């Protein structure tokens, strides 16, 4: 199984924009789907490219879009960039991805424990919920929760 899931706990230690820039330079050929929220603004800030897909309002559907794209284009690397808010709105997507298990899909969750765009209201990951555990429980084969940029870089290589 390939990289079906990767959770990133951004407890102020990983700069999301910096990590996005690093990702784009490390995997320039990847097709990237970005969910509503800052994930897509940061992706656009790295420079708009035809292989980006920005989702504006369908919170929760970024991983589903990524799954469909990965299944349709099995030879392409597909990356989903999403936030904890989106992941919490559609946790079933983790299950569906685990079940289909495409080897070309990498799912990155920028977890800052809040709905940043609506004023920073905390999500459940700020207190009680562990998305990486949910991902493993859903059946994803490779799940990492990283808290530093070097862990992120190592995680990408896996």
């Amino acid at each position, binding site marked *: 199984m390939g990289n079906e899931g990767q959770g990133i706990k951004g407890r102020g230690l990983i700069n999301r924009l910096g990590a996005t820039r690093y990702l784009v330079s490390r995997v320039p050929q990847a097709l990237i789907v970005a969910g509503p929220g800052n994930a897509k603004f940061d992706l656009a800030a790295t420079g708009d490219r035809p292989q980006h897909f920005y989702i504006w*309002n369908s919170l929760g559907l970024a991983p*589903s879009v990524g*799954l*469909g794209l990965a*299944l*349709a284009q099995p030879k392409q690397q597909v990356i989903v960039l999403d936030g904890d808010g989106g992941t919490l709105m*559609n946790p079933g997507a983790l299950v569906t991805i685990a079940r289909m298990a495409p080897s070309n899909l990498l799912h990155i969750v920028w977890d800052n424990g809040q709905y940043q765009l609506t004023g920073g209201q905390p999500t459940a990951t700020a207190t009680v919920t562990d998305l990486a555990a949910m991902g493993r429980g859903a059946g994803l084969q490779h799940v990492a929760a990283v808290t530093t940029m070097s862990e992120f870089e190592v995680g990408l290589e896996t």
Partner: protein
Amino acid sequence: MTWTDIVFERLKANCLEVVCHVPDSVLAPLITRAEADPFFTVVPLTREEEGIGVLTGAYLGGRRGLLMMQVSGLGNSVNGLASLAIPYQIPFLMFISQRGELGEFNAAQIAMGRAARPVLDALDIQHFTLRRVDEVAILTDGAIKTAYTAQRPVALFLSTEMVGWKKEG
């Protein structure tokens, strides 16, 4: 031929390869046939709204598909249709088994069964209804054709007149 045979054949003829579904007893034979045929990529969903996302991604990747669900699932899909499929102009077929109309025993099925067409009308999504086996091929082909021309989902309802209705218990 049964309606299942005809629909199966028309899906293949129209290259609707990606089959997203949440199971329903009326649709079960069609799901089973699709799973057994390597032509199709069958994606079992936890919730129907995911299918809007999966079909969007698949279409971005150059593949056509459909979302098979009971009409209750349409209720679960509304924001996906409104915020993703429509503004991003993603066509696909929604193949929907009707509840809440003729012969319904379950009171909890009535409201969404009745609201389905008004909801689609409010979203300006075209819908057609299969009532007789002899019209299944032409309506299926026609609905698919219109979806891809309009770059918009189109719904095809499977009426209980044609498929019968679930008995209580």
